[in-house]
């Protein structure tokens, strides 16, 4: 089940968990709005991590916490500090990419 959500005056489509269905709907305002919903103010560091995740997604790399930790972009500890409530789950939602299916 998908639903339509208004961000500013733009309509975006999200799935039942709130993940964007179509990445072409994503922009910085969308990211900031989703981040605000989970009480995160996006800093420069957040953006660096989000850009990395989007880049990995574009390269069709299956994301997991181990890969993020060994990327050199962000340590696992900092990743949890930036996105405290389940970092990979939250960060991918803000980045407009699908929720990773990995158990790691």
């Amino acid at each position, binding site marked *: 089940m998908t639903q339509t959500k208004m961000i500013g005056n733009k309509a975006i489509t999200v799935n039942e968990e709130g993940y964007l269905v179509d990445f072409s709907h994503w922009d910085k305002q969308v990211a900031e709005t989703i981040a605000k919903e989970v009480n995160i103010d996006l800093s420069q560091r957040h953006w660096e991590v989000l850009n990395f995740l989007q880049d990995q997604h574009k390269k069709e790399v299956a994301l997991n*916490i181990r890969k993020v930790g060994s990327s050199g972009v962000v340590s696992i500890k900092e990743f949890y500090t930036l996105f405290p409530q389940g970092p990979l*789950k939250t960060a991918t939602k803000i980045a407009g990419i699908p929720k990773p299916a990995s158990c790691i």
Partner: protein
Amino acid sequence: MNEVDGDVKKMMIILSKATLDNVYAAFILANGARSEGIEAEMFFTFFGLEAVHKKKLEHLHVATVGNPAMHIPTMLGGFPGMEAMATTMMKKEMEKIDIPPVHEFLDILSASGVKLWACRLAMDMFHYKKEDLYEGLDDVLTVGGFYERAKGVGTHMLFI
């Protein structure tokens, strides 16, 4: 269960075994909790202590005897080298799907905010000292201390 909304808020995972499959099950459940925004704490007791023992944690094995899921006749499972072979195969398969080795997995758990506790009684029984154990261990704890940490709505306890 008579809880507000049934949400799992915290997982208290007790690991009492040191066979690789049990250790990984416990680690994956703890890591999985953290990645869902759920708190997680682990209590290493009895043979489970080997998973945080510096000298032993890299040498854990899968059990080939008494493990029907291995589909190896019990007699053969006991032959020299069988456990080592099964373990090597399992580790190879795990690396393929990005499951880290035990020490690296402990580092990930610790960095993710999983609390790691060693059981006081088991430490005494095996004559282990704190310095024998993984450096990221939070502390040595009594059972009572572990229960104390389980307080609150939405805490679940799991024995492996």
